[in-house]
């Protein structure tokens, strides 16, 4: 690990003042970038430099900065969350870039994710998909003992693979159809695999898929860009699972 300091980078960044304003790409230069910085720390540095030059800083969402909260996300050189697989943009490090590089930075692009400002988008559509059925109906109170229903290790592990989704929206940004299938399917598969999720399995898939369509997300045409962009490497098996459950409901095989 050898740190390179003092890299200078050219940035082309989408600037948009508010939801209804027209936006455009603007050019910036950021200096003194260290290879140990995360991509967002590089943007912090740019903003510090811009404030001193009295230029309005670039707004972007971020919170945990360790790849788990799902708040951050932008399209870096045409790829959601940038060039490194299985990585959110907060965990992308500047050692992946070289001195003098030009980097193009855009917000998620999707009809269902309107831009709020610069790189910040409105992901409320995900919330409405979640609330349409992304839960198991149980109330707070006494429950059977946690070990009352055994769940095989493999099933628990697979449910966990799906549950690892962080709801960042990269799948939508990467998909040519701007489909939210991977996000929606991950929740459906997590609950669909577990015994606790069985009673509502059929209604859950119909309600969530219906909401996804209502929000203006596109359909899935099995391209797979979503899984390639997913920072948690949620795979296409989730979408297969969702489609299979949906088919069973439509043909009355599952109620």
């Amino acid at each position, binding site marked *: 690990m050898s740190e390179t300091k003092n890299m200078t980078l050219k940035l082309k960044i989408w600037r948009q003042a508010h939801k209804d304003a027209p936006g455009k790409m603007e050019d910036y230069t950021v200096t003194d970038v260290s290879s140990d910085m995360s991509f967002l720390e590089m943007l912090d540095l740019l903003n510090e430099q811009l404030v001193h030059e009295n230029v309005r800083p670039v707004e972007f969402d971020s919170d945990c900065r360790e790849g788990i909260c799902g708040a951050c996300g932008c399209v870096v050189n045409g790829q959601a969350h940038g060039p490194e697989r299985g990585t959110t943009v907060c965990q992308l490090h500047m050692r992946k870039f070289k001195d003098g590089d030009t980097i193009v930075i855009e917000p998620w692009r999707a009809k269902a994710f309107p831009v709020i400002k610069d790189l910040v988008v409105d992901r409320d559509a995900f919330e409405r998909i979640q609330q349409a059925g992304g839960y198991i109906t149980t109330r707070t109170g006494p429950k059977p003992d946690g070990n009352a*229903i055994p769940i095989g290790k493999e099933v628990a592990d697979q449910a966990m693979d799906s549950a690892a989704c962080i709801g960042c929206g990269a799948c939508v940004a990467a998909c040519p159809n701007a489909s939210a299938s991977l996000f929606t399917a991950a929740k459906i598969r997590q609950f669909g695999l577990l015994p606790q999720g069985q009673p509502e399995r059929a209604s859950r898939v119909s309600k969530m898929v219906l909401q996804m369509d209502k929000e203006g997300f596109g359909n899935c045409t099995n391209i797979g860009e979503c899984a390639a962009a997913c920072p948690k490497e949620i795979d296409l098996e989730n979408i297969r699972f969702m489609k299979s459950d949906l088919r069973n409901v439509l043909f009355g095989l599952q109620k």
Partner: protein
Amino acid sequence: MTIELNPNIPEGPIDKKWEDYLGHIKLVNPANKRKYKIIVVGTGLAGASAAASFAEMGYQVTSFCVQDSARRAHSIAAQGGINAAKNYQNDGDSVYRLFYDTVKGGDYRSREANVHRLAEVSRNIIDQCVAQGVPFAREYGGELANRSFGGAQVSRTFYARGQTGQQLLLGAYSALMKMVDAGKVDLKVRQEMLDLVVKDGRAQGIITRNLETGEIEKHAGDAVVLCTGGYGRVYFLSTNAFNSNATAAWRCHRRGALFANPCYTQIHPTCIPVAGEHQSKLTLMSESLRNDGRVWVPKKKEDIKKHPNEIPEADRDYYLERKYPSFGNLVPRDVASRNAKEVCDEGRGVGETGRAVYLDFRDAIKRDGLQTVKDKYGNLFHMYQKITDENPYEVPMKIYPAVHYTMGGLWVDYNLMTTIPGLFAGGEANFSDHGANRLGASALMQGLSDGYFVLPYTLGNYLASQGVQPGGGDTSAPEFEQTEKEVKDRIQKLVDQGKKGSRTVLEIYRDLGHIMWNQVGMARNETGLKDAIQKIQKLREEFHNSVKFLGSDKEMNKHLELAGRVEDFLELGELMARDALERKESCGGHFREESQTDEGEAKRIDDQFSHVSAWEYTGENKEPVLHKEPLTFENVSLTQRSYK
């Protein structure tokens, strides 16, 4: 103002207090519940679980978070696990043992009754989460798996890979969204609470700023529940999320809620060391790693720059195993952190800065195989490699302590109510359960305990027993106008200053972080603390005269948001230093250099400091007033904590 600190602990033996309390509290009748409106601020484990539970009981709930989704609250980043006294491992665990470990781990500075209740409901939490579809780790036979955590000799920690907080939060979030869908919770995202409205001596509403539009909003409720997390970001660098802040709690403090034990901060021993000035936050490597990783530094100073794999066994100092043979690498966090600092101070620290120790998995990989280690910790190793560009399967991790959690917070009684009637605090925002040091995997337990199993009962009892009449969400009272005006004036002042300043918010904020870390951090002394107070006061003045940021308050403006939070940190930081100065003993995470045993361990002074320090705000640049709640221990005997 005369303040009576009555903890309102129920009578009776410790293991019957909560049961008796539940049997005798006043209930709100179901038809009336829907007339009451409850404001819940924050959607982490405590906030989301409380809001969902209130709504299920029939109350109207308005829930607020600063993020764009309730699912992003910082509980999401908790890694290692959640404790519960299930005794599934048949290793002798019990409610009493969890209670005892937590009181001892907190170095006898927590309230016995609260901790016992926590241990009691810990078991319900696991059952609740399983019912919600939380995919806990399982054994091949289908039963729940456990791992060990620091400060305990039983294996009682439940986990979901290294993402336990994420899975528990998503469970609580799904319960919350279910109630949003049912129309029982009005969820307001991208909203920051900037003040509390107190009317007729009761908390009756909050003032928020819509972070998308900049609009200032008034919200009324019959009770306000604050679940807004801790204040570790006072140190600038911490493992806390970028948006974690103390503003909501601090503004309640300014309105009359006492702030308890502000100096109790937890410095977590296993974090990725600081790499440079650019750094915006630190990343935790879960305590669970200490189950299998061995902590060491070279015995000889001349070896510190050598490649670790070339240092032979005989030249390594596994200092935790050497000094604490019965707990070894699993000593509590405060002990592990202080020891790391000590070996680095001796000049035996490794890495570029000399402020790091090794956490080595060589022996675990040899013993259990690479795949087993990968299964347990894969995502943590992956994260480590991303940040440092080193492969921890081949080279030992380098780690160093970092600010992680704050045990202090708003003072609450047994009901989790603050000194302002109608204002409750849950989760990390209150002070009640962890004393001077929190044990690993207990934060998740406390957050969910408060939210699912405590607040829903105690808040109802408040409404029913105090004869609170439903206010119907009316914000027309002059108290709302007045508080709103104060918030608007404050913002206007900030924005006007921002236009003419010269130092950015981050520059001043980093300065505060340096003062706090160097002088109010892992080791504290009288001279350093007095100096810190002066430095912070000066920095606060500098902030008010020269902070610079751009943009207006009528739009999304994250620099303005940060400026407001830093303004509050600059006041809270001073209070932390004052509290640390006042507490002349060492206890848990609070280490006063003047008070140590012959072996350099924290030395409590029970006859002088066996109390909760609760501070009263008296006005800007005025000295706060200290109130004391005596702590009595009837069920554990106070001993010098030993993990040897």
